[in-house]
């Protein structure tokens, strides 16, 4: 309960807390100051009063002593007077009495008396009686002054010895200690002090408890009083006179009370002023803070919010920093948004931005306001990148983008990544002709461009889709433009194609085929067929070429011509190729003699880093000697990085396998390849072999190849040999080996032993025949 109350009382805001702390500190200091000053004043007043009283007591004692001295002087004169002594000695009481009376008058003493040695007393006639016996002890002891009792009042008495010449008595003079003396004493004091004399026995108990010379604070009807007691000399037995000095403390403190009031007023005013100041300072700190907090909240809410730069240096700094931060965040956000939606290299919008815009365009498009989507792919980018270097490739990309943007300054040109670009033209009317636009694009992108002072041929293919007829959504339009590009690419480089519905159907079929192909890779849907490689010179079988067959569950046997390009495209060629190598090695290991097996390695597979490892593993697993494995590669492996290809070839050769160059004569057929790598075999493309009978130039080419190969020590093999005459012609032209239906079509693995036997039998017949 108390906790919650405290919690509730605790200031929540910084401002309140600062003000409260300030205030508490100030109030504490003030209370302390007033307290210390007050008690100091009180102590001072006490000390002053005490000092005054002590001084007054001494003054009073001196006063009494001096009065006593006066009286004593008078008494002495009389006591020594011869006549007085004579009257005394003759015991003439009448004379003595009259002498005492005149003495009293003369000295101003109220009482004049003679005390005899035996205590008897002679006084002036009519004077108050004295009890001589109570005086004797003091007189005998030689005291000559002191306080005595005068009919109930206290008086000051002096005694002078009467000697004739021996001591015979004392002359006593006494005076009441009247208010006159005491008032005189009061007047002597710096502070108003009341003095009185009383016997100790009549003192109040509180006063009696006070030691002599001590100063005590006693209550009285007039308020608190400082009281000091001191003893006065007594001349009478049983009388203990006390001088009582009292000083009204309230009165003494009166002056200081005014001082205290002033102090307290100053403290109050000071505290209030401090509170006001604390609130002002606290506000000057907390107001900019809450402004900042507000601005930060608004900024978090999405509004660009700044704070006014006012106030003291630190506060202004803070506000300035805040504003600078807002600006910096704005700028960074802009950059982030830009880089999220733009391509860093060309500063063109990226694919995401393009699709966003295409989304909106697709929603708005109508037959009267059509959308044209162009999907561009640079044809020779990879070659330029590889041959001229990346900076040149980057420059080429920028140039291509620039060309497109120049052509369509008001439309969106985006880079999709790699060498792909997109163009989005919106609001095409019914009369607008996409075909003419496509021609313009084709002209712009198939031209020479200046890359770092070198003229480079830019070639690009692109596909075009026009909505809404080619697609109602952005996805559809983009996909269809992509399909059109694919078609254009497959038709050759530097071309373009508009989307047609058939393209879509073909694409669908391709997708299905791809799915089936993946399944076949996973489930082992392939098998190898083997076609013999026959040596004409030796008249015997040298080996087989492994040829892949796909036994499609629905479509039956699928031609490699149909699925190998797809496998190349999708990268499935790598796992398929591995399977081929392993399976071919395993089969060949079971063959008699040293028959070799030839395996086709696709360019994609050739660039795979695991090829060599796969071969080593396949050889090891099957136990096939390396020289019985022949890898057939095409010239296309040299496209791109020749050196890397050569390094790869050498490393494969190092394994001990043989390497044949397939389809020789159809591609670049660069003779430099033959020089740079010692191939084991050249396979002459069947197009030359087929024309051998009809075309003399074909024979010339074959002769040239075989001559060249013989000169370089390379075996030659002719593919697609179907006729006996062809075989004879090839033999004449110096070809070493043949392959084709003449010998045998490719047979399944199970049929291989029979084929081997048959060919061996034919060879024996031929030898004997």
């Amino acid at each position, binding site marked *: 309960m108390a906790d919650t109350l405290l919690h509730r009382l605790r200031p929540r805001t910084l401002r309140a807390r600062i003000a409260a702390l300030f205030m508490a500190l100030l109030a504490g200091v003030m209370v302390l100051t007033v307290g210390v000053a007050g008690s100091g004043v009180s102590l001072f007043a006490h000390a002053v009063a005490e000092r005054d009283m002590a001084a007054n007591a001494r003054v009073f004692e001196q006063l009494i002593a001096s009065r006593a001295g006066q009286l004593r002087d008078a008494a002495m004169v009389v006591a*020594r007077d*011869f006549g007085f*002594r*004579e009257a005394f000695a*003759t015991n003439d009481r009448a004379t003595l009495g009259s002498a005492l009376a005149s003495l009293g008058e003369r000295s101003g003493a109220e009482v004049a008396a003679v005390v005899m040695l035996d205590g008897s007393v002679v006084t002036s006639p009519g004077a108050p009686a004295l009890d001589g016996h109570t005086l004797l002890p003091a007189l005998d002891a030689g005291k000559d002054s002191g306080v005595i009792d005068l009919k109930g009042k206290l008086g000051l008495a002096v005694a002078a010895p009467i000697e*004739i*010449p*021996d001591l015979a008595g004392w002359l006593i003079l006494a005076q009441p200690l009247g208010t006159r003396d005491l008032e005189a004493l009061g007047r002597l004091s710096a502070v108003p002090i009341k003095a009185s004399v009383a016997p100790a026995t009549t003192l109040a108990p509180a006063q009696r408890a006070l030691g002599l010379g001590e100063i005590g604070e006693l209550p009285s009807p007039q308020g608190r009083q400082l009281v000091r007691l001191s003893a006065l000399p007594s001349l009478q037995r049983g009388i203990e006179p006390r001088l009582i000095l009292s000083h009204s403390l309230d009165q003494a403190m009166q002056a200081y009370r005014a001082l205290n009031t002033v102090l307290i007023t100053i403290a109050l005013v000071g505290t209030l002023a401090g509170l006001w100041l604390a609130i002002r300072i606290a506000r000057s700190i907390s107001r900019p803070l809450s402004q900042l907090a507000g601005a930060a909240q608004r900024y978090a809410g999405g509004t660009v919010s700044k704070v006014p730069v006012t106030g003291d240096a630190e506060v202004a700094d803070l506000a300035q920093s805040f504003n600078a931060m807002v600006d910096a965040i704005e700028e960074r956000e802009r950059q982030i948004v830009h880089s999220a939606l733009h391509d860093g290299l060309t500063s063109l919008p990226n694919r995401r931005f393009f699709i966003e815009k295409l989304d909106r365009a697709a929603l708005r498009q109508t037959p009267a306001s059509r959308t044209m989507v162009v999907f561009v792919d640079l044809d020779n980018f990879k070659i330029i990148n590889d041959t001229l270097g990346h900076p040149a490739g980057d420059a080429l990309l920028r140039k291509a983008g620039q060309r497109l943007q120049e052509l369509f300054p008001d439309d969106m040109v985006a880079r999709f990544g790699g060498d792909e670009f997109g163009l989005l033209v919106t609001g095409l009317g019914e009369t607008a002709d996409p075909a003419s636009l496509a021609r313009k694009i084709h002209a712009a992108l198939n031209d020479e461009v200046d890359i770092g002072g070198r003229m480079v041929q830019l070639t690009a293919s692109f596909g075009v889709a026009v909505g809404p007829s080619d697609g109602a959504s952005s996805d559809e339009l983009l996909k269809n433009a992509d399909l059109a590009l694919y078609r254009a690419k497959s038709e050759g480089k530097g071309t373009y194609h508009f989307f047609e519905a058939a393209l879509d159907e073909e694409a669908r079929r391709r997708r299905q085929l791809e799915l089936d192909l993946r399944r076949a890779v996973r489930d082992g849907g392939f098998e190898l067929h083997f076609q013999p490689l026959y040596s004409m010179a030796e008249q015997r079988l040298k080996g087989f070429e492994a040829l892949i067959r796909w036994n499609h569950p629905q479509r039956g046997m699928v031609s490699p011509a149909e699925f190998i390009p797809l496998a190349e495209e999708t990268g499935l060629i790598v796992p398929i190729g591995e399977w081929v190598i392993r399976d071919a090695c395993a089969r060949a290991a079971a063959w008699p003699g040293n028959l070799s097996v030839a395996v086709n390695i696709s360019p994609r597979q050739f660039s795979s880093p695991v090829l060599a490892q796969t071969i080593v593993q396949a050889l090891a697993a099957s136990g096939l000697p390396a020289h019985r494995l022949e890898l057939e590669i095409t010239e296309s492996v040299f496209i791109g990085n020749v050196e890397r290809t050569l390094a790869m070839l050498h490393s494969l050769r190092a394994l001990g396998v043989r390497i044949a160059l397939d389809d020789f004569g159809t591609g670049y057929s660069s003779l430099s390849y033959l020089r740079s790598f010692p191939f084991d075999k050249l396979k002459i493309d069947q197009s030359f072999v087929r024309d051998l009978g009809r075309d003399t130039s074909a024979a010339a080419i074959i002769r040239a190849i075989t001559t060249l190969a013989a000169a370089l020590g390379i075996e030659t093999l002719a593919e697609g040999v179907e006729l006996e005459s062809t075989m004879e012609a090839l033999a004449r032209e110096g070809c070493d080996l043949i392959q084709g239906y003449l010998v045998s079509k490719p047979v399944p693995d199970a049929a291989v032993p029979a084929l081997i036997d048959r060919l061996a039998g034919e060879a024996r017949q031929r030898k004997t025949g």
Partner: protein
Amino acid sequence: MLKRFLTRLPIGLLCLIGVSASGPQTAVVQVFDQRGLPVEGAVIEIPPPPGSTRPVSFPWRNAMAQRNQTFVPGTLIVPQGSTVAFPNLDTVRHSIYSFSKPARFQIDLYSRDQTRSQRFPITGTVALGCNIHDKMRGYIRVVATPFAAATDLNGRGSIDGLAPGTYRVTVWHPRLRGSENEAVKTLTIAPGTPARLAIELR
């Protein structure tokens, strides 16, 4: 002449005591006060025992001189009826007065080397003062017995011619508490031992 006599007087007294000490009849009395201090200037008197025929006379002169503003001797014992001389040996003048009952008299100022005299017919103490010198005190003890002595600095006094025995003795001293500054005591005199007397002084 007189001066020489006075200075010789104690020597004479001593001789006398020495002579009488050999006899059986010299009594020494020593007086003390309440504090046990010997008392000087006390007078011891023993009334003549019955049958004593010894005349009342003393070996000292009946004179009380004033010298150096002092009465000399301070205490003088004289027989009743004697006349005492007051020679002034000082360079200043002195007057002598007495308010004592046995002899009230006043002698006016008189000069050096003058002598006044006064007769004392009544026994008792006569306190002498000088009217102009308050400090001067002299005491004349007028006695009617020859057995009297004043004590010396050691509180001793010697009385001749007394047989050993017990006596009533009157002691006087100016500060003795008691009527007329006298006290009556009993004193036993035994030969060879000084008798002690205790008195109370003011």
